[in-house]
């Protein structure tokens, strides 16, 4: 059933697939993000409790959702790489990691910026922000581990093991932090009220999530190509590709 995937274990095929998909993901992603963000910022109605500050939702929620999805995607790539020994899977994993770290970072900043007007402080140890902070550490851990190894084959496997240990712990961390937060109830719980959101607010939110996902996808395709180029830099197909794409004025 998965036979059609097999050719993509080869880096050359995957590189060209990324190249073909890149314009779609980047153009579509940028368009959807712009459309959804403008809709949410300028056209969506105001919230009676939080006034205009609630509009941060249109960047905080997509990035928070994506941070967890990207970690899971990374863990899936790690699993495939470890079980079926597919090199390109480890490359995909490491292409995803910095993107995941960046969106987690954005979710932390936007969460703090949202918290200041709502709770009065820039930082609050609520369940969501604390979970995001720990997720940030998990991403940085996987990236650091990968970078500590000279041999990239070893590096991929080691980082893969850590990614899987992390993903198993992710639900445990999430629920334990949530439970911890109910014990130490300090500030008000930030209620997003997603199910009770009117459609005029909900649609830009859903579109933002889609837009961010597409843009992250585009960056992933780019970084995947970079990983492939970096690993296969001496191969003839890479040399041929470089000659074709770069202007031929360089070199002799």
């Amino acid at each position, binding site marked *: 059933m998965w036979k059609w995937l097999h050719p993509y274990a080869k880096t050359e095929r995957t590189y060209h697939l990324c190249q073909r998909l890149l314009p779609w993901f980047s153009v579509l992603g940028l368009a959807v993000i712009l459309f959804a963000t403008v809709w949410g910022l300028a056209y969506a109605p105001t919230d009676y409790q939080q006034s205009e500050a609630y509009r941060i939702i249109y960047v905080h929620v997509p990035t928070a959702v994506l941070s967890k999805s990207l970690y899971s995607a990374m863990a899936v790539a790690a699993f495939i790489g470890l079980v079926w020994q597919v090199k390109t899977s480890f490359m995909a994993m490491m292409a995803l990691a910095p993107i995941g770290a960046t969106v987690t970072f954005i979710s932390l900043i936007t969460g703090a910026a949202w918290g200041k007007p709502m709770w009065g402080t820039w930082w609050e140890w609520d369940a969501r922000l604390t979970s995001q902070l*720990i997720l940030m*550490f*998990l991403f*940085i*851990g996987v990236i*650091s*581990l990968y970078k*500590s*190894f000279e*041999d990239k*084959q*070893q590096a991929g*496997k*080691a980082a893969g*093991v*850590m990614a899987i*240990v*992390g993903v198993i*712990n992710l639900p*445990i*961390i999430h629920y*334990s*932090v949530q*439970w*911890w937060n109910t*014990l130490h109830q300090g500030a008000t719980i930030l209620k997003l009220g997603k199910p009770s959101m009117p459609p005029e607010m909900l649609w830009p939110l859903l579109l933002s999530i889609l837009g961010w996902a597409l843009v992250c996808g585009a960056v992933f395709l780019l970084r995947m190509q970079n990983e492939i180029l970096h690993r296969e830099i001496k191969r003839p197909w890479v040399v041929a590709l470089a000659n074709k794409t770069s202007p031929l004025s360089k070199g002799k």
Partner: protein
Amino acid sequence: MAALMAILKRDLALAYRQRAELMQPMLFFILVISLFPLAVGPEPKTLQLIGPGVIWVAAILSSLLGLERLFRDDFQDGSLEQLMLSSTSLPAAALVKVVAHWLTSILPLIILSPLLALFLHLSEPMYWALLKTLLLGTPLLSLIGGIAVGLTVGLNRGGVLLALLLLPVFIPLLIFATSAVEFASMELQYSAQLAIIGAMFLFSLALAPFAIAYALRVSQT
């Protein structure tokens, strides 16, 4: 089976001969905990409030210090490679080494815990809760720590990387252990927290040896 017992005896004997090195995490444990009264003031109420958290954080950090010992010496003198090539099951051998490590590096901390509970003015029910969480939860530190140590055995900058990898993973344990002691201080039932810690312990007991064996194979290609 005989081979596994031999590994256990060997590790225990080696640890005993390096008693000085074993003292280091213990001293760190005591020192770090002693810093807190100095930092926040000796008021018993404050110390009792932060006590369980401080002891658990100090235990986690001390165990990180001692974790490197798990495979380092064997890696350096080549016996790790021999172990991996031998016919003994690597996961079983890894489990045995983890047991030896827990006995030599972490059990001393637990033995010290009454003294430190005294330093931080923990009440008696609090101390019993603390002891139970330590007994049930510290094996987790060795088991999961072993996975990360297995991955980073050959690397030079092991130390902080180990902390970076392991601390996020230890956070749930920290949350439930300290919560159990807190509940004890309020004279509430804390069997739920112990049950969750126990579940995490059994889960890692079942899976970690295989993960450690795999990690060793990855890092020792």
